[in-house]
């Protein structure tokens, strides 16, 4: 009797064992195991810190310390103070302008490389386009200061040529300078996604459209442009999101009236030691970026669906 009972128990144990063994050897388990170091790193170094600034943003700032009293005062200040509101709006405006300029200027370049360059030379062109992006960002931004400065390259050249008598002052230490510099810095970011989207377009579609009687311009308008929209949308987001948080450019070429949100955040953290307010500003900036991006994605959902077909 006892023996049969034991025997009856055996298959259940075996079953559990092999099921565990199967899971361990299964694709899901191997995949999870393999990704876990990287995922864990992102969890510790990204998720936890993001949670931490979320927490800090609702704490009270004390002198040299942070008090554990929950409050919304930081957000009230970040959103209520006209100074911060102005900085925030300016950041949005600058980012939006930079994005618009960059993507509009980038589209023809991507179009040229995708449609008019022979396949074997495409990667050379892309390489040429990406090289400037990899060279010292700090020095590139600083060079714009040199170019646009009071006695910089533009002014000294124009004066030598006798086109102007006085140096132009509207090109440095203001929003214009920030827009020019950022548009330059983020150019490859805009070109690459548009290029990839254009590459994916089946060329016979364009021939079909012309075969059906559309002119080349209308073919572009009715076929090429809509099909490349996923790339344009990606380009917009890839330019918009980081530019709003750029620190170096406004600091170097923006002057007092070109300051953006990251300069304010840096000020709170490193100068004024007000972590809670700095965190509230950072969280607000992220929230705005996310909200704008989501609205943008929503408005373009029609184009993105095409890609999934």
């Amino acid at each position: 009797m006892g023996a049969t009972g034991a025997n009856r128990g055996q298959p259940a144990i075996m079953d559990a064992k092999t099921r565990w063994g199967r899971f361990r050897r299964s694709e899901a388990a191997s995949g999870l195991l393999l990704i876990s170091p990287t995922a864990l790193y992102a969890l510790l170094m990204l998720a936890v810190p993001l949670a931490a600034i979320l927490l800090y943003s609702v704490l009270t700032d004390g002198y040299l310390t942070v008090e554990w009293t929950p409050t919304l005062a930081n957000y009230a200040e970040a959103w209520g103070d006209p100074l911060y509101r102005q900085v925030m709006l300016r950041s949005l405006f600058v980012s939006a302008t930079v994005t618009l300029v960059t993507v509009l200027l980038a589209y023809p370049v991507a179009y040229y490389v995708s449609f008019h360059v022979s396949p074997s030379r495409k990667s050379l062109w892309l390489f040429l386009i990406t090289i400037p992006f990899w060279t010292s960002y700090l020095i590139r931004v600083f060079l714009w200061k040199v170019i646009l400065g009071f006695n910089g390259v533009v002014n000294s050249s124009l004066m030598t040529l006798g086109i102007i008598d006085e140096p132009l002052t509207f090109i440095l230490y203001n929003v214009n300078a920030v827009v020019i510099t950022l548009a330059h810095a983020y150019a490859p970011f805009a070109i690459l996604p548009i290029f990839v989207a254009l590459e994916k377009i089946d060329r016979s579609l364009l021939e079909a459209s012309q075969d059906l009687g559309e002119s080349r311009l209308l073919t572009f308008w009715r076929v090429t442009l809509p099909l490349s929209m996923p790339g344009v949308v990606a380009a917009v987001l890839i330019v918009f999101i980081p530019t709003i948080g750029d620190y170096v450019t406004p600091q170097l070429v923006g002057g007092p009236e070109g300051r953006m949100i990251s300069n304010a955040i840096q000020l709170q953290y490193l100068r004024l030691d007000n972590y809670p307010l700095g965190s509230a500003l950072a969280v607000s900036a992220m929230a705005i970026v996310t909200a704008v991006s989501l609205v943008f994605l929503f408005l373009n959902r029609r184009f993105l669906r095409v890609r999934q077909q």
Partner: protein
Amino acid sequence: MRSKGTGFRAYTIAYLIFLYAPIVLLPIFAFNNSTIIAFPLAGFTTNWFRELATIPALHHAVWNSLVIAVSTSILSTCLGVFAARASTRYDFPGKGPIIGFIMLPLVLPEIIVAVSLLVVLLGIGIELSAWTVILGHVLICTPFSIAILNSAFQSLDKSLEEAAIDLGETRWSTFRLITFPLIMPGIISSLLISFTISLDEFIIAFFLTGTQPTLPVYIWSQLRFPTKLPSIMALGTILVALSITLLIIAEYFRRRGIARSGGQDAGGFL
């Protein structure tokens, strides 16, 4: 067709000139014999390069940056290998969100990464040092490593690994004998790209470096002093030349990897 192509071509070349304009100025002023960065030029000199050799603070910063960049490139490439392997070979629950989250630093403003890490590191009482910069740099370099290694793993035919196992090798020896040699070009270009990014990164280093500045942080501190600018130009010239060299090497290895596994060239680094 032809005329339209040339119009686009002219525009694209103008655009490239716009892209390269600032970089072209760099060597011009680096060799210009004047303390003022402006036209007209005042003659040729190599003084500014020689001056670089006499600044100990600069040498410390360079050394710091090199240590950080080398550590970052190795760590992020290792993490990249794990993640790229998992994402190209395996299906597992939550794959999309997990990988999306790991790639998030690509679209996150760097200042957010910097301040949030700062808050946590100070919060748990870790002193700022080269190591804290490395932590931040690994975070932002890993997505780039993953992107590069993904394409290396994708162009690797799965049946090559199965064949090795079928011929009696274990999983580990298969990785050593087959997978690793075949993705080697990808690994090298991942190392080079991470190295370049880390060497150049400013904001995270600015926030997380302690008393020992990295090279970009050092440059930043010098930009305030007009007399230091020509030597910064010289330094910039060296850096740009260095990055372009590294990039060309990285591109060479990436292409060789694709050629070797017989695949198609799928584009650039991003």
